[in-house]
Protein backbone atom coordinates (compact mmCIF):
# COMPACT_ATOMS: atom_id res chain seq x y z
CA UNK A 1 0.00 0.00 0.00
CA UNK A 2 1.28 3.42 -0.89
CA UNK A 3 0.13 6.52 0.89
CA UNK A 4 -0.87 9.78 -0.69
CA UNK A 5 0.02 12.74 1.48
CA UNK A 6 -2.17 15.80 1.24
CA UNK A 7 -0.82 18.88 2.94
CA UNK A 8 -3.51 20.63 4.91
CA UNK A 9 -4.04 24.23 3.84
CA UNK A 10 -2.44 26.80 6.07
CA UNK A 11 -0.74 24.09 8.08
CA UNK A 12 2.51 25.99 8.47
CA UNK A 13 0.87 29.36 8.80
CA UNK A 14 -1.44 31.54 6.78
CA UNK A 15 0.72 34.63 7.21
CA UNK A 16 4.42 35.45 7.36
CA UNK A 17 4.24 36.06 11.10
CA UNK A 18 2.61 32.68 11.73
CA UNK A 19 5.23 30.99 9.55
CA UNK A 20 7.98 32.92 11.34
CA UNK A 21 6.79 31.74 14.72
CA UNK A 22 6.71 28.16 13.49
CA UNK A 23 10.21 28.50 12.01
CA UNK A 24 11.53 29.75 15.34
CA UNK A 25 10.40 26.53 17.00
CA UNK A 26 12.92 24.65 14.92
CA UNK A 27 15.15 26.13 12.28
CA UNK A 28 15.62 29.75 13.34
CA UNK A 29 14.50 33.24 12.45
CA UNK A 30 14.26 35.20 9.23
CA UNK A 31 13.38 38.59 10.67
CA UNK A 32 14.02 40.53 13.87
CA UNK A 33 11.56 40.66 16.74
CA UNK A 34 10.81 44.26 15.82
CA UNK A 35 10.03 43.30 12.24
CA UNK A 36 7.83 40.48 13.49
CA UNK A 37 5.83 42.94 15.58
CA UNK A 38 5.47 45.22 12.58
CA UNK A 39 4.30 42.34 10.41
CA UNK A 40 1.65 41.40 12.94
CA UNK A 41 0.49 45.00 12.89
CA UNK A 42 0.25 45.00 9.09
CA UNK A 43 -1.55 41.65 9.06
CA UNK A 44 -4.01 42.92 11.65
CA UNK A 45 -4.70 45.98 9.53
CA UNK A 46 -5.16 43.82 6.44
CA UNK A 47 -7.64 41.67 8.31
CA UNK A 48 -9.55 44.66 9.65
CA UNK A 49 -9.66 46.64 6.45
CA UNK A 50 -9.70 43.95 3.77
CA UNK A 51 -10.85 40.86 5.61
CA UNK A 52 -7.65 39.20 4.48
CA UNK A 53 -6.55 36.33 6.68
CA UNK A 54 -4.11 34.77 4.23
CA UNK A 55 -1.23 36.90 3.03
CA UNK A 56 2.54 36.91 2.80
CA UNK A 57 4.63 39.95 3.62
CA UNK A 58 8.32 40.46 3.13
CA UNK A 59 10.78 42.18 5.47
CA UNK A 60 10.63 45.13 3.07
CA UNK A 61 6.97 45.61 4.01
CA UNK A 62 7.74 45.42 7.73
CA UNK A 63 10.38 48.13 7.42
CA UNK A 64 7.77 50.52 6.06
CA UNK A 65 6.01 50.58 9.44
CA UNK A 66 7.38 53.37 11.63
Amino acid at each position, binding site marked *: *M*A*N*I*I*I*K*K*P*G*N*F*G*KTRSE*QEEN*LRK*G*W*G*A*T*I*TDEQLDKMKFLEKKAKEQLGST*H*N*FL*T*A*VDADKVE
Partner: protein
Amino acid sequence: MYLRGMKRDGQVLINENIKFAKSVLFKDLWAVPWFVDGVNGSDSSSGLGADLSKATIQAAISAAGRGDVIYVRPLAYKIGTGFNRYTEDITVILGGAGGSAVEATKSDISLIGITESRNPEFGPRIKATTIGMQIDAPAFHIENMGFYAEDATYAIYLRNNGATYTQRGSDGFTMYNCVVKGSGLYIASGGDGARIEKCRFHTKYDGTSGGIGAILYSCSANPGTRLQILNSIFQGGNVTEQPATAYITILPPMTVALIKGNTFFKIPADAHYINAAGASNTGAIVDNFFADADIVLETDLHIGGMVQAGNFDTGGIVV
Protein backbone atom coordinates in the same frame (compact mmCIF):
# COMPACT_ATOMS: atom_id res chain seq x y z
CA MET B 1 -16.72 15.75 0.80
CA TYR B 2 -14.98 13.90 3.60
CA LEU B 3 -11.87 11.77 3.22
CA ARG B 4 -11.04 8.94 5.55
CA GLY B 5 -7.42 8.56 6.50
CA MET B 6 -4.86 8.67 9.24
CA LYS B 7 -3.80 12.05 10.59
CA ARG B 8 -0.21 12.48 11.62
CA ASP B 9 1.89 15.61 12.16
CA GLY B 10 -0.62 17.83 10.49
CA GLN B 11 -0.85 15.59 7.41
CA VAL B 12 -3.57 13.23 6.34
CA LEU B 13 -2.39 9.87 5.00
CA ILE B 14 -4.89 8.28 2.64
CA ASN B 15 -5.06 4.79 1.24
CA GLU B 16 -4.28 4.80 -2.48
CA ASN B 17 -7.51 2.98 -3.27
CA ILE B 18 -9.60 5.95 -2.34
CA LYS B 19 -10.60 8.00 -5.36
CA PHE B 20 -11.42 11.65 -5.20
CA ALA B 21 -12.00 14.61 -7.42
CA LYS B 22 -8.96 16.40 -8.83
CA SER B 23 -10.01 19.62 -7.17
CA VAL B 24 -9.29 18.07 -3.78
CA LEU B 25 -5.63 17.59 -4.67
CA PHE B 26 -4.60 20.93 -3.25
CA LYS B 27 -1.34 21.59 -1.47
CA ASP B 28 -2.53 24.83 0.00
CA LEU B 29 -5.22 27.32 -0.79
CA TRP B 30 -2.65 30.11 -0.83
CA ALA B 31 1.11 30.41 -0.95
CA VAL B 32 2.83 27.12 -0.26
CA PRO B 33 5.89 27.10 2.01
CA TRP B 34 8.71 24.87 0.80
CA PHE B 35 11.74 23.84 2.81
CA VAL B 36 15.38 23.25 1.87
CA ASP B 37 17.86 21.58 4.21
CA GLY B 38 21.15 20.68 2.56
CA VAL B 39 22.14 18.33 5.37
CA ASN B 40 19.00 16.42 6.31
CA GLY B 41 16.87 16.96 3.21
CA SER B 42 16.38 14.88 0.09
CA ASP B 43 15.23 15.99 -3.34
CA SER B 44 12.95 12.98 -3.42
CA SER B 45 11.09 14.35 -0.38
CA SER B 46 8.01 16.49 -0.91
CA GLY B 47 9.66 19.66 0.42
CA LEU B 48 6.40 20.61 2.12
CA GLY B 49 7.59 20.48 5.70
CA ALA B 50 10.74 20.98 7.72
CA ASP B 51 11.01 17.23 8.16
CA LEU B 52 10.26 16.70 4.46
CA SER B 53 12.84 19.14 3.12
CA LYS B 54 14.40 19.19 -0.29
CA ALA B 55 18.20 18.98 -0.30
CA THR B 56 18.76 21.57 -3.02
CA ILE B 57 17.35 25.00 -3.67
CA GLN B 58 16.86 24.10 -7.34
CA ALA B 59 14.57 21.21 -6.45
CA ALA B 60 12.39 23.49 -4.34
CA ILE B 61 12.25 26.18 -7.01
CA SER B 62 11.36 23.61 -9.65
CA ALA B 63 8.50 22.39 -7.49
CA ALA B 64 7.26 25.82 -6.43
CA GLY B 65 4.58 27.79 -8.21
CA ARG B 66 3.30 31.33 -8.30
CA GLY B 67 3.40 33.08 -4.93
CA ASP B 68 5.14 30.26 -3.06
CA VAL B 69 7.77 30.74 -0.37
CA ILE B 70 10.99 28.75 -0.02
CA TYR B 71 12.78 28.69 3.32
CA VAL B 72 16.45 27.70 3.21
CA ARG B 73 18.33 26.39 6.23
CA PRO B 74 21.99 27.36 6.55
CA LEU B 75 24.61 24.64 6.39
CA ALA B 76 27.16 24.01 9.11
CA TYR B 77 29.84 26.54 9.91
CA LYS B 78 33.39 25.43 9.21
CA ILE B 79 36.41 27.16 10.72
CA GLY B 80 38.29 29.15 8.13
CA THR B 81 35.62 29.04 5.43
CA GLY B 82 32.52 30.07 7.33
CA PHE B 83 29.20 28.48 6.52
CA ASN B 84 29.25 25.74 3.93
CA ARG B 85 27.60 26.73 0.71
CA TYR B 86 24.85 25.35 -1.45
CA THR B 87 27.01 24.76 -4.52
CA GLU B 88 24.37 25.20 -7.17
CA ASP B 89 23.76 27.10 -10.38
CA ILE B 90 20.04 27.70 -10.07
CA THR B 91 17.61 28.60 -12.82
CA VAL B 92 14.17 30.06 -12.31
CA ILE B 93 12.18 29.63 -15.49
CA LEU B 94 9.42 32.01 -16.54
CA GLY B 95 6.71 29.39 -16.13
CA GLY B 96 3.99 29.02 -18.73
CA ALA B 97 4.26 29.29 -22.46
CA GLY B 98 5.44 32.89 -22.55
CA GLY B 99 3.97 35.54 -24.81
CA SER B 100 1.98 38.68 -24.33
CA ALA B 101 -0.89 38.35 -21.82
CA VAL B 102 0.10 34.77 -20.94
CA GLU B 103 0.43 34.03 -17.22
CA ALA B 104 3.93 33.47 -15.86
CA THR B 105 3.32 30.54 -13.55
CA LYS B 106 6.60 30.94 -11.66
CA SER B 107 6.09 34.57 -10.66
CA ASP B 108 6.16 35.98 -7.12
CA ILE B 109 8.30 33.23 -5.59
CA SER B 110 10.19 34.18 -2.43
CA LEU B 111 13.52 32.62 -1.46
CA ILE B 112 14.24 33.32 2.19
CA GLY B 113 17.33 32.34 4.16
CA ILE B 114 17.08 31.51 7.82
CA THR B 115 19.56 33.02 10.21
CA GLU B 116 19.25 33.53 13.92
CA SER B 117 21.30 36.70 13.86
CA ARG B 118 19.60 38.27 10.84
CA ASN B 119 23.13 38.75 9.54
CA PRO B 120 23.21 37.18 6.08
CA GLU B 121 26.92 36.41 6.60
CA PHE B 122 25.69 33.71 8.93
CA GLY B 123 22.84 32.45 6.84
CA PRO B 124 22.62 30.16 3.84
CA ARG B 125 24.97 30.86 0.96
CA ILE B 126 24.94 29.88 -2.67
CA LYS B 127 28.27 29.17 -4.31
CA ALA B 128 28.06 29.86 -8.00
CA THR B 129 30.08 27.85 -10.49
CA THR B 130 29.01 29.87 -13.55
CA ILE B 131 25.81 31.75 -12.65
CA GLY B 132 24.48 31.43 -9.12
CA MET B 133 20.89 32.24 -10.01
CA GLN B 134 19.53 32.87 -13.47
CA ILE B 135 16.04 34.26 -13.15
CA ASP B 136 13.49 34.61 -15.94
CA ALA B 137 10.38 34.73 -13.74
CA PRO B 138 8.95 38.10 -12.69
CA ALA B 139 8.68 39.42 -9.13
CA PHE B 140 11.19 37.01 -7.64
CA HIS B 141 12.09 37.95 -4.06
CA ILE B 142 15.34 37.04 -2.28
CA GLU B 143 15.83 37.66 1.43
CA ASN B 144 18.76 36.89 3.79
CA MET B 145 20.81 34.94 1.25
CA GLY B 146 24.55 35.02 0.61
CA PHE B 147 26.02 34.61 -2.86
CA TYR B 148 29.62 33.59 -3.35
CA ALA B 149 30.72 34.23 -6.93
CA GLU B 150 34.47 34.41 -6.63
CA ASP B 151 35.06 32.23 -9.70
CA ALA B 152 31.71 32.65 -11.43
CA THR B 153 30.47 34.86 -14.24
CA TYR B 154 27.60 36.35 -12.22
CA ALA B 155 26.16 35.81 -8.78
CA ILE B 156 22.68 36.65 -10.06
CA TYR B 157 21.56 37.14 -13.64
CA LEU B 158 18.14 38.63 -14.27
CA ARG B 159 17.08 38.10 -17.87
CA ASN B 160 14.52 40.19 -19.69
CA ASN B 161 13.90 40.12 -23.42
CA GLY B 162 11.30 42.80 -24.04
CA ALA B 163 8.78 42.11 -26.77
CA THR B 164 9.86 38.47 -27.11
CA TYR B 165 7.98 37.92 -23.82
CA THR B 166 9.81 34.84 -22.60
CA GLN B 167 12.06 36.40 -19.94
CA ARG B 168 10.91 38.81 -17.24
CA GLY B 169 13.51 38.33 -14.51
CA SER B 170 14.02 42.01 -13.76
CA ASP B 171 10.33 42.94 -13.58
CA GLY B 172 9.46 43.43 -9.94
CA PHE B 173 12.60 41.67 -8.70
CA THR B 174 13.39 42.41 -5.05
CA MET B 175 16.46 41.60 -3.03
CA TYR B 176 16.70 42.36 0.68
CA ASN B 177 19.42 41.84 3.30
CA CYS B 178 21.63 39.76 1.01
CA VAL B 179 25.41 39.59 0.64
CA VAL B 180 27.03 39.19 -2.76
CA LYS B 181 30.73 38.55 -3.15
CA GLY B 182 32.52 38.56 -6.48
CA SER B 183 30.89 39.10 -9.85
CA GLY B 184 27.64 40.63 -8.78
CA LEU B 185 24.17 41.28 -10.12
CA TYR B 186 23.78 41.47 -13.88
CA ILE B 187 20.47 42.66 -15.28
CA ALA B 188 19.82 42.44 -19.01
CA SER B 189 18.01 43.83 -20.61
CA GLY B 190 15.62 46.47 -19.41
CA GLY B 191 12.61 45.76 -17.22
CA ASP B 192 10.52 47.51 -14.64
CA GLY B 193 10.77 48.00 -10.91
CA ALA B 194 13.77 46.00 -9.69
CA ARG B 195 14.56 46.88 -6.09
CA ILE B 196 17.76 46.13 -4.15
CA GLU B 197 17.60 47.10 -0.49
CA LYS B 198 19.87 46.74 2.55
CA CYS B 199 22.28 44.47 0.72
CA ARG B 200 26.06 44.31 0.80
CA PHE B 201 28.17 43.86 -2.31
CA HIS B 202 31.84 42.89 -2.15
CA THR B 203 34.31 42.60 -4.96
CA LYS B 204 36.36 39.43 -5.25
CA TYR B 205 39.20 38.62 -2.87
CA ASP B 206 41.67 40.51 -5.06
CA GLY B 207 39.36 43.50 -5.54
CA THR B 208 38.28 42.67 -9.09
CA SER B 209 34.69 42.04 -10.03
CA GLY B 210 34.56 40.13 -13.27
CA GLY B 211 34.07 43.30 -15.27
CA ILE B 212 30.50 43.96 -14.12
CA GLY B 213 31.16 45.60 -10.77
CA ALA B 214 28.58 45.06 -8.07
CA ILE B 215 25.60 45.82 -10.28
CA LEU B 216 25.47 46.12 -14.06
CA TYR B 217 22.07 47.03 -15.46
CA SER B 218 21.99 47.04 -19.22
CA CYS B 219 19.09 48.73 -20.98
CA SER B 220 20.77 48.83 -24.37
CA ALA B 221 18.42 46.36 -26.04
CA ASN B 222 15.27 47.12 -24.04
CA PRO B 223 14.51 50.17 -21.89
CA GLY B 224 14.54 49.93 -18.12
CA THR B 225 12.56 51.88 -15.58
CA ARG B 226 12.07 52.47 -11.85
CA LEU B 227 15.22 50.70 -10.62
CA GLN B 228 15.78 51.27 -6.89
CA ILE B 229 19.05 50.67 -5.04
CA LEU B 230 18.54 51.60 -1.41
CA ASN B 231 20.50 51.57 1.84
CA SER B 232 23.12 49.13 0.60
CA ILE B 233 26.89 48.88 1.09
CA PHE B 234 29.47 48.55 -1.67
CA GLN B 235 32.91 47.33 -0.63
CA GLY B 236 36.16 46.00 -2.00
CA GLY B 237 37.66 42.56 -1.56
CA ASN B 238 39.66 40.94 1.22
CA VAL B 239 43.05 42.30 0.27
CA THR B 240 42.06 45.59 -1.31
CA GLU B 241 39.20 47.99 -0.92
CA GLN B 242 39.25 48.91 -4.55
CA PRO B 243 36.96 47.58 -7.26
CA ALA B 244 38.32 47.26 -10.76
CA THR B 245 35.35 49.01 -12.31
CA ALA B 246 32.29 51.01 -11.26
CA TYR B 247 30.28 49.64 -8.38
CA ILE B 248 27.08 50.41 -10.26
CA THR B 249 26.83 50.74 -14.03
CA ILE B 250 23.60 51.62 -15.80
CA LEU B 251 23.63 51.45 -19.57
CA PRO B 252 20.85 53.70 -20.95
CA PRO B 253 18.00 54.22 -21.33
CA MET B 254 16.93 53.83 -17.70
CA THR B 255 14.16 56.15 -16.54
CA VAL B 256 13.34 57.37 -13.02
CA ALA B 257 15.89 55.25 -11.18
CA LEU B 258 16.52 55.95 -7.51
CA ILE B 259 19.89 55.34 -5.86
CA LYS B 260 19.50 56.44 -2.26
CA GLY B 261 21.06 55.98 1.16
CA ASN B 262 23.97 53.79 0.07
CA THR B 263 27.56 53.70 1.32
CA PHE B 264 30.33 53.32 -1.22
CA PHE B 265 33.86 52.47 -0.12
CA LYS B 266 36.91 53.92 -1.78
CA ILE B 267 37.68 53.31 -5.46
CA PRO B 268 40.90 53.64 -7.49
CA ALA B 269 41.56 56.80 -9.49
CA ASP B 270 40.43 55.35 -12.83
CA ALA B 271 37.15 53.82 -11.57
CA HIS B 272 33.68 55.21 -10.87
CA TYR B 273 31.37 54.85 -7.94
CA ILE B 274 28.38 55.01 -10.24
CA ASN B 275 28.50 55.11 -14.01
CA ALA B 276 25.13 56.18 -15.36
CA ALA B 277 26.54 58.06 -18.33
CA GLY B 278 24.01 58.94 -21.01
CA ALA B 279 21.37 61.66 -21.19
CA SER B 280 18.59 59.07 -21.48
CA ASN B 281 19.35 57.78 -17.99
CA THR B 282 17.03 59.69 -15.67
CA GLY B 283 16.27 59.59 -11.97
CA ALA B 284 17.94 60.63 -8.75
CA ILE B 285 21.12 59.84 -6.84
CA VAL B 286 20.47 61.16 -3.36
CA ASP B 287 21.69 60.87 0.25
CA ASN B 288 24.60 58.53 -0.48
CA PHE B 289 28.04 58.50 1.15
CA PHE B 290 31.25 58.09 -0.81
CA ALA B 291 34.45 57.22 1.08
CA ASP B 292 36.70 59.68 -0.68
CA ALA B 293 37.99 63.10 0.27
CA ASP B 294 36.55 65.05 -2.61
CA ILE B 295 34.78 63.20 -5.40
CA VAL B 296 34.33 64.86 -8.74
CA LEU B 297 31.21 64.66 -10.88
CA GLU B 298 31.75 63.05 -14.29
CA THR B 299 35.09 61.74 -13.04
CA ASP B 300 34.14 59.65 -10.01
CA LEU B 301 30.40 59.85 -10.46
CA HIS B 302 28.83 59.78 -13.91
CA ILE B 303 25.24 60.85 -13.33
CA GLY B 304 24.22 61.11 -16.99
CA GLY B 305 20.72 62.56 -17.13
CA MET B 306 20.06 61.84 -13.46
CA VAL B 307 20.07 64.50 -10.77
CA GLN B 308 22.11 64.28 -7.59
CA ALA B 309 21.56 65.96 -4.24
CA GLY B 310 22.41 65.42 -0.60
CA ASN B 311 25.39 63.19 -1.37
CA PHE B 312 28.41 63.36 0.93
CA ASP B 313 32.04 62.37 0.73
CA THR B 314 34.57 62.66 3.52
CA GLY B 315 35.24 66.24 2.50
CA GLY B 316 31.63 67.34 2.74
CA ILE B 317 28.68 67.58 0.42
CA VAL B 318 29.18 66.66 -3.22
CA VAL B 319 28.61 69.56 -5.59
